[in-house]
């Protein structure tokens, strides 16, 4: 916008074009305050950075940009180096009532890191130190901005591992593991990120820096650490965490199996879990996924439900666990495909996420991962499949899925919808996308599933929080109002 102002200087009147808008005065004042906290080198307001930080790994903003449409960008991108700097940023943000969006790797798939109201992107990757590796207590304490794979490589140097292997490890941060209650490939044995965390340091929205107790299991009152697990930044910013670690296993055994039908395969997985055979991984692809993704990525042309099962640890124990599992598989009529296809899956398990073999634009796609008790697993799967396929048949929607994380009481389902020829117009595409999600989530919630298992809620699924929690969501809203009265922490996310 060009502003014209009448000015009189040395008796001469003239009309002059101004260089800056009125808002830019305030913008620069706030920028200076932020700069004093983090240093000039660690703040950017430049266009290219704002563009790149305007989107995360979720389909909605990526599609929007792909169609040549601009997104709301952050006003400031700051890189704090200490929790004290995070606290100081929060004080400034409260003063001016500016949104703050914590940013780790930007690898979330739900739009949880989008700056939909502008504001401050607080990228924590500068806080990336390993503070302690305690080999006696088998734990690592690190700042929350450390990259997942870098942390893992450091631990591996000592023969240790943080057994949280998400597909996003190369880009996600430790804080990003925890904020959406993430799950890794071998969670079936080692647990989700929330099971691996022992304690955390969090900067609250008012700038207070708190630490949770050093150990996770105690009876010293309620476990408030859980409040920040799954909060995706709406309750505060995780700045440090202590995680349990394990020794790198002496052996890892993998096998692949083929089931004629999904029911028998799910039952096989259930029996392994309820008999406590402690599998590292059970990855069960439905027939649709077996025929498409397994074929495209691993090169196996198979009909049925493809399963990879793994055991790790001491050689003799893993071998015995595998033997007992094989007895179960045999009872249920599975065909043993041998080690090679299981090991190949392990070696290439992340290839599914690399371009150009990943799901990618201009396709429309989404992963409606959910979790339920065993008695509801098939009910949810078929309800989602039927609802999505029938409602969006005109769009030739494909519905595929796999079962990736197993518990003593149930399993997580990772279902995907794919529309290869979505509307070209960005608005039409976004609306269709959101309608498909509504269909999938409704089918899940109505049949015993949850909104999500490990990808979190973000912007995309916030509208379902009250539907899942009912009046209990009031409790969460009251907590949010109490600790973030200005509503500046990652607004619009997780239903807040």
């Amino acid at each position, binding site marked *: 916008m060009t502003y014209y102002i009448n000015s009189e200087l040395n008796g001469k009147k003239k009309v002059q074009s101004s260089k800056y808008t009125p808002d830019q005065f305030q913008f620069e004042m706030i920028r200076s305050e932020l700069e004093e906290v983090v240093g000039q080198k660690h703040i950017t307001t*430049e*266009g*290219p*950075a704002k563009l*790149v930080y305007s989107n995360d790994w979720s389909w909605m903003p990526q599609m929007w940009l792909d169609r040549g449409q601009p997104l709301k960008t952050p006003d400031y991108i700051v*890189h704090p180096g200490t929790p004290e700097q995070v606290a100081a940023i929060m004080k400034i943000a409260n003063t001016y009532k500016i949104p703050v969006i914590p940013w780790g790797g930007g690898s979330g798939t739900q739009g949880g890191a989008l700056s939909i109201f502008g504001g401050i992107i607080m990228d924590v990757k*500068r806080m990336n130190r390993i503070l302690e590796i305690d080999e006696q207590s088998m734990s690592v304490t690190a700042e929350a901005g450390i990259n997942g794979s870098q942390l893992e490589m450091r631990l591996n140097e000592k023969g240790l591992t943080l057994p949280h292997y998400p597909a*996003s*490890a190369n880009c996600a941060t430790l804080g990003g593991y925890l904020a959406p209650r993430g799950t890794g490939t071998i969670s079936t044995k080692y647990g989700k990120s929330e099971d691996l965390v022992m304690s955390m340091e969090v900067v609250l929205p008012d700038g207070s820096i708190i630490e949770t107790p050093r150990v996770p299991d105690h009876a010293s009152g309620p476990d408030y650490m859980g409040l920040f697990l799954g909060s995706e930044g709406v309750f505060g910013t995780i700045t440090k965490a202590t995680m349990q670690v394990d020794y790198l296993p002496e052996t890892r055994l993998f096998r692949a199996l083929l089931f004629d039908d999904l029911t028998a395969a799910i039952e096989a997985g259930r029996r392994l879990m309820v008999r406590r055979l402690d599998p590292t991984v059970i990855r069960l692809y439905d027939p649709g996924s077996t025929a498409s993704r397994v074929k495209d990525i691993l090169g196996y042309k198979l009909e049925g439900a493809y399963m990879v099962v793994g055991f790790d640890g001491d050689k003799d124990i893993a071998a015995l666990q595998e033997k007992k599992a094989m007895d179960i598989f045999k009872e249920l009529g599975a065909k043993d495909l041998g080690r090679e296809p299981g090991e190949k899956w392990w070696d290439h398990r992340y290839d599914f996420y690399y371009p150009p073999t990943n799901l990618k*634009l201009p396709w429309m796609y989404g992963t409606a991962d959910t979790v339920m008790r065993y008695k509801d697993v098939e009910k949810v799967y078929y309800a989602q499949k039927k609802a999505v396929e029938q409602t969006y048949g005109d769009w030739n929607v494909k519905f595929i899925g796999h079962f990736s994380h197993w518990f003593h009481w149930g399993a997580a389902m990772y279902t995907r919808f794919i529309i290869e020829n979505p509307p070209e117009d960005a608005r039409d595409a976004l609306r269709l996308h959101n309608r498909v999600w509504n269909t999938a989530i409704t089918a899940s919630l109505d049949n015993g599933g949850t909104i999500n298992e490990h990808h979190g809620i973000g912007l995309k699924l916030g509208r379902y929080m009250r539907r899942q929690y009912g009046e209990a969501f009031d409790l969460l809203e009251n907590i949010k109002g109490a600790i973030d009265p200005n509503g500046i922490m990652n607004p619009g996310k997780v239903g807040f």
Partner: protein
Amino acid sequence: MTQTNALDTTENCRYCLMCRHLCPVGNLTHNEALSPHGWAQMVASERRGLLEWNEQSIDALYKCADCGQCESHCVTDQPLPNAIAAARTLLVENGKAPEEVKQLAEMLTASSNLYNGQVSQPPSGKGDIALFIGDEADHFAPGAVEAVLKLLKNTGIEPVLIGRGRNDGLIPSGLGLRSKSIELANATIEDLESTGATTLLVLSPGAFFTFTRIYPERLNIELDPKVEVVEVTSLLADKMESGDMSVNKTSLTDKFAYMDPEHSVRVPSRFAAPRTLMDTAFEGERVELFWRKERSGSGGATGLQFTHKDMADDLTRFRLAGAGEAGVKTVFTEDSATFGRLNQFAGHNGIEVRNLYQSLAGQL
């Protein structure tokens, strides 16, 4: 590959984050925009009219080190460095290149040398084996070329020298000076052909990568298929292992390490050779650095040293800091450019940097 096809790689990389953990610039800046997907997104966005190439965006695009980490770690081998080079080439062609790049272009026109303005020397004769010297060795590590010749002579090889003082084209091509790089490459090929050599020895993984990959993939130039490109380090390691060469073993009292030079990650088959040389020549406590082999990032010996010197310096310091954290007192490397940069900052960390070729030659 056409420049447009090269740019198409950004369509795959713009939303992929799978190589982020090993991008040295991303690790240094912690800035999403200054990482592989950030650069890819900028190029892809410019093609969609969402970004203009202005001072800020051009500056950001030129902060990629062209180190090859992203491509080397990509499961599907996306050639993102070539895409960034292609985008920079378009900027150069449209007169939008940064001033530093324009100056380099002028320097190359005058001398074919990026560092000291000297004119390259003609081939030293004819023979079956040629050794490409380039413009880095004499500039960064005076005496290194003579050390290499002494080592080779010890194995019975007396190569013809070509390209002494001439840049190999890697850095210019990465900076978007494609036509200059093609001129450099053609001049070197002409020299090579005039010698009649069928083996081309090179002094660094960067040069090896240039002749085997940059020429065909970025410049559309093919070496004569009869010519085999061999790194001197690999040749010497083979000679050591076969017993055709030996050196007097030297004992080191403090911890020491080999530092994989710039572009090593682009030639993974070379990781063993320098370590063989190290273990043959030195005894004591040799440790492996954390940033080693396939994760050995850039040490700043790239185009960044011309366009963003502070950043290049930080990358060099970062690698030395890694050696310091490991308690290493002496670092060895053979690539002259890597050696030169490390040596420039070594004193700050109390670390001695030694040129591997010169050390080996001294122990013959």
